[in-house]
């Protein structure tokens, strides 16, 4: 390095030191992240993300997977930040697309790096959005690829989507207006011009805190789908209005909700559907009793005009159920599916689910046990309604504040609709007649910060 270069370097370092010494200019770096290891011994899952092997004489085996998430937030000040969130999923041993593994390391679910010697591209973009408060009005805006969840236990939609949402709080009232474009099939240089083959969600949400113990809310969601009824949102127009509340009564907390949907499935069929549900928690003994339930309207004839509509099965959840197999578990990572492939409305049949459990903690040990039952709301043809009853339990230990280890077991007593011998079963989900009762044992290490 010549003397002149050294001088330049010295000047650059001095300038940098000067810049970092001025706190008002400092950009704050905020990191969050998580790592979860899951090991399964099961006869019902194979490490994929769809419904799998509900069949007679189902084989039991072991697989393991991991997920890491890294969130980096570049915070300019208390009113402005850029949020970025990335995900890295891996099944131990990698996911192959055929049994001899020669078809490459990537399988049905894409990114993985569990093959011998790793070294694959596995970084997935989850969120990238700007989060800022507008100084004049004090309203908060989030613009970009961001997570959004409905106010109905995610029975309708929980997803990462591109869009913009504004939130403004006025005393006890919080209002939200948002727009998301969750699908755009317009080609980059399409002669039709932009925005022709798109699916948009519009959100209007209001919440009012009546008192410290009571919050009531009302929502309106609208989906306009011009994508030619692609895989997402199999309808052209959907309106959904709903009300929800969050109430503390004595030792109990109850969150009831109800929503009605109408719109057009296509030019020939209208939609008229609804959902009801509630989530509750009551303090009891050293822990709390949880209960939850929902009713999703269904359709008998297969035209689905009375069936509750989600956007896709893969973007629905019902975490308060605390199930492992009947409903996908809230703790799931890469393998995130249920006996009905996450289709909570069971192919338009509608569903009724009731769930109850108890959770508590003793020092660094925590535990929970749950039971749940699900059936379809409507039966088609000779099909039965009962899907099954699940019992599960989990026990865990907090190794550090943010690192927990746990073990869980779940077992489902299949109902007639899933283990029937003939046309009484729903063949979409039960691959063969007389399917075995599914079970799983889960071992987990979870680190989050």
């Amino acid at each position, binding site marked *: 390095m010549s*003397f*002149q270069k050294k*001088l330049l370097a010295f000047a650059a370092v001095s300038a940098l030191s000067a810049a970092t010494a001025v*706190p*008002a200019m400092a950009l*704050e*770096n*905020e*990191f*969050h*992240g*998580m790592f*979860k290891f899951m090991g399964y011994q099961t006869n019902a899952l194979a490490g994929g993300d769809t419904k799998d092997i509900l069949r007679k004489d189902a084989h039991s085996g072991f697989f393991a997977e991991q*997920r890491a*998430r890294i969130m980096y937030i570049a*915070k300019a000040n*208390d009113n402005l930040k850029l949020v970025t*969130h990335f995900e890295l999923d891996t099944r131990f041993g990698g996911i192959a697309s055929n049994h001899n593994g020669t078809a490459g390391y990537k399988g049905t679910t894409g990114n993985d790096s569990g093959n011998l010697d790793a070294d694959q591209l596995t970084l997935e973009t989850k*969120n990238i959005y700007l989060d800022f408060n507008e100084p004049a009005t004090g309203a908060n805006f989030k613009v970009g690829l961001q*997570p959004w*969840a409905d*106010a109905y*236990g*995610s029975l309708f939609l*929980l997803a*990462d989507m591109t869009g913009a949402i504004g939130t403004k709080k006025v005393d006890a009232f*919080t209002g939200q207006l948002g727009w998301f474009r969750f699908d755009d099939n317009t080609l980059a240089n399409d002669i039709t011009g932009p925005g022709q083959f798109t699916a948009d969600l519009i959100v209007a949400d209001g*919440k009012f*805190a009546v008192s*410290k*113990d*009571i*919050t009531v809310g009302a929502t309106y969601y609208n989906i306009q789908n011009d994508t030619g009824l692609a895989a997402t949102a199999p309808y052209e127009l959907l309106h959904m209005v709903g009300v929800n509340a*969050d*109430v*503390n009564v004595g030792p109990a*907390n109850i969150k009831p909700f109800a929503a009605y949907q109408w719109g057009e499935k296509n030019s020939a069929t209208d939609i008229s559907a609804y959902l009801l549900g509630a*989530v509750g*928690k009551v*303090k009891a003994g*050293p*822990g*709390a009793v949880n209960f939850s339930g929902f009713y999703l309207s269904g359709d008998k004839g297969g035209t689905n005009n009375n069936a509750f509509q989600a956007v896709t099965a893969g973007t629905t*959840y019902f*975490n*308060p159920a605390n199930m492992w197999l009947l409903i996908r578990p*809230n703790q799931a*990572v890469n393998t995130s599916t249920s006996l009905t492939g996450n289709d909570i409305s069971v192919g338009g049949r509608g569903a009724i689910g009731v769930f109850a459990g108890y959770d*508590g*903690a*003793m*020092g660094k040990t925590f535990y929970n046990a749950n039971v749940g039952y699900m059936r379809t709301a409507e039966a088609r043809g000779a099909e039965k309604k009962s899907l099954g009853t699940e019992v599960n339990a989990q026990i865990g230990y907090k*190794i*550090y*504040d*943010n690192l927990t280890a746990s073990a869980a077991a779940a077992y489902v007593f299949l109902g007639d609709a899933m283990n029937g011998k003939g046309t009484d079963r729903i063949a979409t989900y039960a691959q063969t007649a007389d399917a075995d009762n599914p079970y799983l044992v889960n071992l987990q290490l*979870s680190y*989050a*910060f």
Partner: protein
Amino acid sequence: MKRSLVAILIIVGTLLAAAAASASTIRAYIAEFTVSPTDNGNLKNTLQRLLATRLAGDGIVTVDTPAEADVIVSGSYTTLGKMFSLDAIAKSTGGKQLSTAFEQGESMDALIPAVGKISGKLKGDLAKQFQATAPALPAAPVEVPSKAPRAEIERPAAAQEMVKAPSSEIVHNEATPGWISQRLSGVYSGVATWGTKEFVAADDKGIHLYRPGAKLDLVTEVILPDRMKILALDAMGPEASGRVLVFVTIMDRENISSRIYALQNDVFKLVAEDVPYMFRTIAPYGGSKKLYAQQMGRTDDFYGDVYEASIVDKGVKLSNPIKMPRFANIFNFNQFRDQSGKSYLTTFSDSGYLLVYSDTGEELWRSSDKFGGSETYFQRRDWENERTNMTPFRTRFLDQRITVTEKGEILVPQNSGFFVLGNLRSYSKYSVVNFVWNGSSLEEKWRTKQSQNYLADYSYNPASKELILLEVAQKGTFGGKGGSVVRLLGIE
């Protein structure tokens, strides 16, 4: 190339000149005056102060202790008949006489001009004499052992010069060194005092009454059910009967379920439980301690205003609501006044900056460094964001108390060290910092020496001017319970 070299030489030259300039500053200690025959009207302190303010400047800085000084100035005021004589003598710390000066006069009217003349003469002599004798003087005695207790407080040089004049009124209590307890097993999170030596401390098991003596003695304790997490600990009293009310803010399965205990004759008696309020005692404007309460809402962690609270028939009576500006809640605010009596509210932002709001809620000032910082948190179920965060809970950290002293100055802790911003926090060192509001910003006046522990909580006792500092010496890890210590530190 040549230009760059010249520029560097200029910069280096300037730096050397600045260093040389700072090295030539004379630190003078003004001793108390002797007054004879009798000191009517506290003349000895007045004269000391008058000379200090006049002598400071032009390369001379006055200091508070002989240990810090290069020059010691002593003086006397003698009256004989109607005449007075004001005499002063400046000596080096080695005992060498550097300058003498005297002035005579007939009435008290001539006293203040006389002080001015004396200081002028001393100043001139010292500048000359000191420069001549400087090489022979010992180095500045920063590390003198007798200074150890006082070394707990570090003054920034700039602030020292600015506040020097009024600060000569501060009497530093050298007889109160920091006292450190024995190691207490467990990670403690809260401490509360009520003006006596005893205090209550909270850990993840319950609350414990300690009495400092040769060591810290555990007097009595209350063990809480495992499911309860103590968020805050405060005390009011003692009442005429000697009873102290202890307020334990508790999170029990996602709801606030606080308890109030009466402490009398070393016995905790449960007064009320499952109280749906978060409590904090604050002495706003540096006045008397008051009890405050705030509720937790279904959607808001801190619901509505903060109220002054009183306990009536085992119930809580609320009055005088205070509207919290952005970021402020019951645990992280205090109020102070400026000299004109105008009220301000101070708090920490979510990112840890110290803020000052006007009484209309307008943000007036924000620190450039971070202050406060706590590892105490509560968690609430967050179904909507569970899939995004991969944890069923949303974590909310509390922040440190802000104390306004009886002088209207502001005390805040500053936890720092390695930590990850996220749901894992791990502070490793702290100072307590004293601020003064100068009309436009909070100006740092002094800070305690950095301690190599995390400060979980603290309490200020205005009667003894002592800080009770609850430090976590070892974090709880796998198989270990962790350890804490209590430090008592006089700050004046």
